[in-house]
């Protein structure tokens, strides 16, 4: 097993799929000659040439649309948003074309494509560059949404996403690209739609189901460490697939622990966090010993100043506080 950074795992996925399938190409700002703003696509231009690694002008609606059109022709575009913040100008293309055209054409056209890039706050990029877009895109019927937090998941899920015939929104994170982890040497795929238990219950203490994804994972795991000595036994579930959601994995854990805290990057109003919470209260109503709690961004535009940003972001300390609360250990 090799130890790879997430960026390397993503690159390996793209590379393998490009080698495997001539129809796969990468398009976006700085993906080619610059080797990627965050170096995910490093070396791919050299290997595959300008036909398949396509640098674009700053025109997200334009190149998202080009990707959609190309996908309708049977190509399999990987559209990189330098960050998902810039996908806001391509919102209509994703909502009204990518997510709809398969249905609207009664299946005449398929859209085998991936929109990918970093999502959520990084570090001191201020409000327009610190936004988590799953809240928006998960709302669309007609797409699948994935968020990865480890090199293993990054590679396995991106390969699956590239092979999937549906439009996929694939979330990464600037601050996680350098995170390292083991990745098998042989080929593997991870199905979309399956959550993964990143920390199992130990069976000692009060169980708490901790649901997370993306940048939330490290916060959740750190909080679980802090909680263990207090007798709070956390099962940390990484959703990975945000649409469709793996209800079964979530419910199985909730039935064991009867307590749930969500820990994630993103605004509190609505979105993926509220959806998961709603499903739990609906599908596991009789299993809940406490309300489902959410630890996420405070409900404000992200300030630049480091101290303010830290306060707005979810933290292990805040998550621990929530664990205590669902366990009625609140001080």
């Amino acid at each position, binding site marked *: 097993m090799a130890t790879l950074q997430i960026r390397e795992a993503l690159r390996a996925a793209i590379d393998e799929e490009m080698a495997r399938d001539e129809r796969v*190409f990468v398009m976006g700002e700085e993906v080619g000659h610059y080797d990627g703003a965050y170096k995910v696509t490093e070396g791919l231009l050299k290997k595959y040439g300008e*036909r398949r690694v396509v640098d*674009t*002008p700053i*025109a997200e*609606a*334009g*190149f*998202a*649309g*080009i*990707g*959609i*059109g*190309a*996908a*309708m*022709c*049977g*190509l399999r575009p990987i559209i990189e948003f330098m960050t998902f913040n810039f996908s806001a*100008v391509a919102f*209509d*293309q994703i909502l*009204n*074309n990518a997510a709809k*055209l*398969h*249905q*609207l*054409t*009664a*299946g*005449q*056209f*398929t859209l085998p494509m991936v929109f990918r890039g970093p999502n959520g706050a990084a570090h001191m990029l201020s409000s327009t560059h610190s936004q988590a877009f799953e809240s928006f895109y998960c709302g669309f*019927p*007609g797409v*699948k949404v994935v968020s990865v937090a480890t090199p293993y998941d990054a590679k396995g899920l991106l390969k699956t996403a590239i092979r*999937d*015939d*549906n439009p996929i929104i694939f979330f990464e994170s600037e601050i996680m690209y350098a995170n390292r982890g083991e990745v098998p040497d042989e080929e593997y795929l991870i*199905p*979309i*739609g399956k959550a993964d238990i990143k920390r199992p219950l130990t069976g000692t203490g009060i169980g708490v189901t901790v649901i997370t994804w993306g940048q939330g994972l490290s916060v959740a795991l750190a909080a679980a460490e802090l909680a263990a000595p207090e007798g709070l036994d956390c099962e940390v579930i990484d959703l990975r697939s945000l649409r469709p959601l793996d209800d079964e994995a979530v419910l199985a854990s909730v039935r064991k622990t009867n307590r749930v805290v969500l820990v994630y990057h993103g605004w509190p109003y609505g979105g993926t966090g509220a959806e998961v919470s709603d499903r739990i209260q609906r599908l596991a109503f009789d299993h809940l010993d406490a309300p489902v709690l959410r630890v996420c961004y405070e409900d404000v535009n992200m300030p630049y100043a480091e101290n303010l940003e830290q306060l707005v972001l979810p933290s292990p300390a805040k998550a621990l506080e929530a664990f205590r609360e669902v366990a009625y250990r609140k001080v």
Partner: protein
Amino acid sequence: MSRDTARKTDTSPPSSGAGPDLDHLRHLYTQMLRIRRFEEAAARAYTQGKISGFLHLYIGQEAIAVATADLMEPGDRVVTTYRDHGFAIALGCDSGACMAELFGKATGLVGGVGGSMHFFAKDKGLWGGYAIVGSHVPVAAGHAFASKYNQDGRVTLCFLGEGAMHIGATAEGMNLAGLWRLPIVFVIENNMYAMGTPLSRQSPVDDLTSRAPGWALASDRFVVNDVLETRTRLAEAVAHARNENRPALVELLTYRFRGHSMSDPGKYRTKDEVDEWRSRDPLHRSEQQLRDAGITEDALTAIDDGIIAEMDAATAFADESPLPEPAHRFRHNLIEDV
């Protein structure tokens, strides 16, 4: 339903002998008239409450779709707006399936799921029917991108209203097409109004091809009076796109005789203006040309009778067709994993 939906597949320019010319003109005329009669039938059905939602008629602009279908080579694509029936008919879609789509029936072009604004018939070269203004322009550029990627020699013809020339997606798509020299021809159907807004309140320039140089697009601009002239000049742009990777922006000056959609009384235009354009109706011009070339009144009547019968049949077909299966509302939202 028996009807003349045969699409002319001979894509060479019409020869100069009187015989073939006449055949060709008769074909073009017939196709234009089929669109006209289809739209009239649709308007009636709308008035009768059999069609709902938005219905944007193509009456007055038929020569464009017919010229286009006539010059296309197999595999070429048309991408257009919500004003899409004319292209469907011209490209050889079954008029019954078109009408059934308007009626929201299972037998419709896309199973009743799209309605008037979303006709798609991939195998006929109709790559859609898009309803967000300008949003289809980058998509069409994407089709052309794929043609370049695959070196398949196909050309994409992307139609847009003059109203779509002022929205961002259009500018982005056109710049990318110019930058990458994609095999695409953008055709502005400048019918002078975007809903009730005349061009003078949309843009500070009259000549929209003044935007072509900024995106390195070749350009052409003319009034659509004559279907054959339209065919010839569009074909030139298409040939450049196909053979020289020279994308183009062609502005066609045309007119819709009806309101923007069925709900638009069209009060923003004077009767004189409408009459003036109606008097130049390309459909009537072709009819006159056929007369001049010696076609008899009987023959003309026979063409029209055939078409009226076709459209009656189309309407009956739509009427009698079943509604979509309830379960089909879940269809095609995603492709199920295999």
